[in-house]
């Protein structure tokens, strides 16, 4: 059976705009309603509305990271103030000693390494602020950090391309002033944004222990401490009163619940 072209467009729109599971369910519902007598134009309108809604949700979700990245990149001059003296000192020390192309590599490292560190600090601060877990999804986190690093590396390649791929013309000034060099600033922003978007969400909010469980574990801790405080030469029979006391305290707290 040949599919209606308008319905085909509606289903294609859903596949393009939504993720797999969601698109599948919505497309199935749309087909069911079409067979139940809904017009093809109604189906197309629903698909358009759904695509708009999904796009709006995605945009809204990426608004916070977008603003965060813009603000964080604005802090880059402060970061430069921190590292510029030490990097400049290092470069002055080794510039004469290292021949080209080693000197150019040194310039590149001096330019990119602080930018990488700035990016990593940005990702770390974001994960703290938005309660994103860096530990529970190590692979995704690593991917996130590497996406940022790769984008910065691309930034360097772009800069090299502008300099007609001549490493000798590359200087640390090409990396140092992102607000002056707009392109570097934009790439720094994109690197951070890409890294932050990939960062995984924490699946479950950290749950607090219920008060009675916390109380019981506290009593057990105290009981253990009392047990360990008893001198080793004290016979076991003498230790028992403490144990019975802690046991009765435990039972009391449990019955109180």
């Amino acid at each position, binding site marked *: 059976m040949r599919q209606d072209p308008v319905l085909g467009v509606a289903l294609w729109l859903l596949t393009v705009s939504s993720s797999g599971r969601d698109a599948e*369910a919505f497309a*199935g*519902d749309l*087909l069911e309603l079409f067979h139940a007598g809904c017009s093809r134009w109604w189906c197309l309108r629903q698909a358009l509305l759904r695509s708009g809604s999904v796009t709006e949700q995605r945009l809204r979700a990426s608004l916070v990271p977008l603003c965060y990245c813009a603000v964080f990149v604005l802090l880059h001059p402060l970061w430069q103030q921190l590292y510029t003296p030490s990097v400049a000192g290092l470069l002055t020390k080794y510039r004469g000693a290292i021949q080209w192309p080693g000197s150019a590599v040194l310039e590149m490292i001096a330019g990119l390494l602080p930018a990488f560190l700035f990016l990593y600090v940005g990702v770390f601060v974001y994960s703290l602020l938005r309660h994103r877990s860096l530990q529970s999804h190590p692979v995704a986190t690593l991917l996130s950090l590497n996406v940022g690093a790769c984008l910065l590396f691309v930034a360097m390649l772009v800069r090299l391309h502008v300099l007609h791929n001549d490493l000798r013309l590359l200087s640390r000034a090409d990396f140092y002033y992102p607000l002056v060099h707009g392109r570097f600033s934009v790439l720094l922003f994109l690197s951070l944004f890409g890294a932050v978007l990939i960062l995984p969400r924490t699946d479950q909010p950290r749950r607090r222990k219920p008060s009675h469980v916390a109380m019981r574990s506290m009593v057990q801790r105290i009981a253990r401490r009392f047990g360990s405080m008893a001198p080793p030469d004290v016979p076991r029979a003498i230790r028992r009163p403490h144990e019975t006391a802690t046991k009765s305290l435990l039972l009391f707290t449990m019955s109180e619940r």
Partner: protein
Amino acid sequence: MSERLPLNDSDLVTLLAILRLGDEAYGVSLCKEIGSITGTGAALASVYKALDRLEQSGLVVSRMGEPSPERGGRAKRLVRVTAKGLRAIDETRAALNDLWRDVPVYGSIAQKEKSR
């Protein structure tokens, strides 16, 4: 609705429709059920938007059903109300009952005035 109410109109109607349908709550059946509750037809896109919002708030959970040939081999997105959702419904009901307390039934008053 009032700020005291945990659920707005559309969320409450959607949750009640899911509860009415039980295990058979999915996009198409919800559209029909909401249509029968409100008296006007509900758009599939709006139902899905409400479901997304409710799922993000943890008030409903969804799972995929079995694919069927009449749906072009596509599976249904079956939804059910969570314990949090049930609590929110109860709280909304209590808040609405509080709002209605001490408010007379105006229909009977109007009838009395008419009979005079």
